């Protein structure tokens, strides 16, 4: 070996910080040697993907510095990082569906926009790369839109390999792959590493990480908690580091309600996005948590219960005073007293250019209209004003535009929308995402108050602490399967996390993922 350890570093980060609404990365230090495969693991929201985006110039760090081969490095965009020999295979696939495999790979590698495309050459090149990643039988002229998810992921990987970059970042590269496909990828990565390519490997599949990587860093709450060689690590150790020392954090004690009548029964539910039958039930006045990693089917489960995603098998029954109803559409759900607060407020929650009152009443317009369908302004103003006061929504009044409200107040008004409908069962997808601490506390307090008033809540959250402090019971999804259930006072963060990871490392889980 030539020189000391530091001169052999391909990549280093020193004191990198990044905040969106809340800090995502805090003082991240990372050193990766040439020819190493470096694993990056952590819970959802730990900051892995953000770090990757900063390295390739998709995001800017607030402070701290990056070094490439000991030279300061500050990418503005992805062409900067490509020029520096860095390529990323992102979690969100970036393929153009209406172009062929060969054209997609070409898009990524060609240097000038106006050079003539040499079709033959491009196809041969693509064909070679497809062979490499194991898509031997695929024609490079196939449109990407015709590929399965696993095939798309392999094309994405091929595209990354095509750049001949010397630092590869792979964000969840095997999430849709079968075991043999993943194994092949790992072999390719080891070969590349032997040739001096450095790899950053981000994955939820701890088994994969331990088998392919030389070193692993654990991120928790935006901090690097540990960096160690793989041969001294185990899955158990990683999970413990990811969950943290304060794994037994508990909110102020609350009265656990006596078991009441069943409110919702989900039986062998299957949708196109949830291939494995899911069954559970939920009691009136219970707060049921759904834990799981991103992509484990949490959102899909809530959407299916609400009737947004058509189910292909099984049943969803809601028990009401006057009988039992089967849920088939959002419209019917609302009539049966169900409300859904979606994960992505901007996308399918708020009407940002319209008034607060418009946003709150839109799901329950019949409550502010006379029998002919005419809206009664007085009723609207007074019922919205009441909700604003009850939920402490800070606004200039019912006519203020939604876009002018803070994230926390927007989120509260999403809750107000269903309180206006007097919903009895609230489905909440990440109810406190992107809101500040005070708003978060206020929302938690409100949810407990609602529960005590007999309203049932089903909450999805990536924050285990949130679920643990709120819920009476937690069910865990892993790889689109319901794996287990925990009761209050009978859980630990490490156990829940282990359950959330459980289906990602077994062989059968992989084949079912590829079937999807």
């Amino acid at each position, binding site marked *: 070996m030539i020189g000391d350890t530091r001169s052999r570093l391909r990549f280093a980060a020193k004191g990198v910080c990044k905040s969106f609404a809340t800090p995502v990365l805090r003082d991240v230090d990372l050193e990766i040697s040439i020819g190493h495969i470096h694993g990056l693991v952590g819970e959802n929201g730990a900051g892995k993907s953000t770090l990757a985006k900063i390295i390739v110039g998709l995001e800017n760090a607030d402070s701290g510095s990056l070094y490439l081969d000991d030279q300061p490095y500050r990418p503005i965009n992805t062409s900067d990082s490509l020029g520096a020999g860095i390529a990323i295979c992102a979690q969100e696939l970036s393929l153009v569906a209406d172009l062929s495999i060969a054209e997609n790979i070409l898009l990524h590698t060609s240097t000038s926009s106006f050079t003539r495309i040499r079709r033959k050459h491009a196809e041969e090149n693509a064909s070679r790369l497809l062979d490499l990643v194991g898509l031997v039988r695929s024609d490079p002229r196939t449109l990407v839109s015709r590929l399965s998810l696993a095939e798309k992921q392999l094309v994405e990987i091929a595209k990354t390999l095509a750049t001949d970059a010397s630092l590869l970042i792979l964000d969840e590269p095997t999430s849709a792959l079968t075991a043999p496909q993943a194994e092949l990828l790992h072999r390719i990565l080891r070969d590349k590493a032997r040739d001096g390519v450095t790899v950053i490997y981000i994955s939820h599949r701890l088994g994969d990480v331990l088998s392919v990587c030389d070193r692993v860093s654990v991120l928790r709450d935006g901090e690097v908690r540990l960096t160690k060689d793989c041969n001294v690590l185990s899955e158990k150790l990683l999970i413990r580091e990811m969950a943290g020392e304060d794994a037994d954090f508990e909110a102020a004690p609350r009265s656990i309600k006596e078991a009441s009548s069943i409110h919702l029964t989900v039986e062998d539910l299957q949708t196109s996005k949830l291939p494995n039958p899911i069954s559970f039930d939920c009691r009136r006045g219970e707060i049921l948590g759904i834990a799981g990693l991103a992509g484990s089917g949490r959102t899909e489960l809530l959407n299916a219960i*609400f009737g*947004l995603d058509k189910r292909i098998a099984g049943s969803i029954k809601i028990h009401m005073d006057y009988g039992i109803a089967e849920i088939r*559409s*959002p*419209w019917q*759900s*609302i*009539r049966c007293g169900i409300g*859904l607060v*979606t994960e992505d407020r901007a*996308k*399918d*929650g*708020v*009407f*940002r*250019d*319209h008034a607060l009152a*418009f946003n709150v*009443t*839109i*799901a329950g*317009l*019949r409550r502010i*209209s006379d029998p002919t*369908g*005419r*809206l009664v*302004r007085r009723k609207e103003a007074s019922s919205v004003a009441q909700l604003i006061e009850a939920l402490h929504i800070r606004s200039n009044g019912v006519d203020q535009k939604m876009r002018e409200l803070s994230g926390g107040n927007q989120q509260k008004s999403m809750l107000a*929308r269903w309180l206006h409908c007097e919903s009895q069962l609230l489905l909440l997808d990440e109810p406190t995402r992107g809101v500040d601490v005070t708003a978060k506390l206020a929302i938690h307090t409100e949810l407990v108050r609602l529960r005590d008033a007999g309203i049932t809540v089903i909450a999805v959250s990536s924050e285990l602490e949130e679920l643990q402090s709120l819920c009476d019971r937690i069910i865990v999804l892993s790889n689109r399967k319901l794996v287990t259930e925990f009761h209050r006072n009978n859980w630990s963060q490490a156990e829940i996390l282990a359950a959330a990871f459980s289906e990602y490392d077994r062989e059968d889980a992989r084949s079912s993922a590829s079937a999807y």
Partner: protein
Amino acid sequence: MNEFGNRVSRILEENLIFVSLIAIVIFFSLISESFLSLTTLSTLLNQLPALTVVSIGMTLVLISGGIDLSVGSVVALSAGVIGAGIAILGLPLPLAACLGILTGALIGFANGSLGAYLRLPIFIVTLGMLEVSRGLAYLVTDSQTVYLGAKIQSFAIPWAGSGISASILVALTLVVVFEFLLRSTVFGRQIVAVGSNESAAEVSGIDPRRVRCTVLVLSGLLAGLGGLMNAAYLGSADPNAGIGLELSAIAAAVIGGTSLMGGRGSVVGAFVGVLIVSILQIGLAQIGITEPTKRVITGAVIILAVILDRWRAT
């Protein structure tokens, strides 16, 4: 005093379109002595009805996030059906009129089913229907203008001395009715919600397909009525009627503050838009501006309206 000034400027800003309308009227009456006269008013009122009702439908469709390019042809088709009904089948006028309006609604229903339920791009569907309806209009009239006589004209001819016809009265009533529908009914809110954020509307229990389909049926129905008004105005069913009318309707809606992206707009605004476009036409003609120049100016006004609207929104 300063506060008073602020209030005035806010009122001017919020009612920019009315202010513009008044400014245009003042402008023309200053340069043309004959502008402020009963003749001008009567010309204006006679031109208005068909474009007004078509613009109402267009506004609703645009607010729901769609577009309806077929309306101009539907006007001709509806007129053609009325003409054929009276001249060939010998139907009484009211029955023929209903048949014409119903034809419009049917075309709207076809647009709605294909666009909303089969999820085909509504721009292309209604563009196709523009051709289909125009072709059908030629077929039912045998490509001839069908003369209908005085009876149908009584709908469009102003009542003695008043300058107001049944036609314009119906159009004005519909402006009020549909503005009310949009502002103050459950259905109006649903149209705005679907145009503003379709997936949020769906989560709120609104079926976006049903709303989109319904506004397209309304638009077709109103275009059918526009056909009746056109036939009454001309005293004949002209298969070439309404060519380019869809563009005038879109322009009127946009001048009136309706967003082409959906989720925002006003029926009264669209009516003022119709007034602005029509008054420009008449006024420019009176001061001796030639047809080509008129088109250049009208086009520029449309673009100016959008610029002002953008400036007001930010």
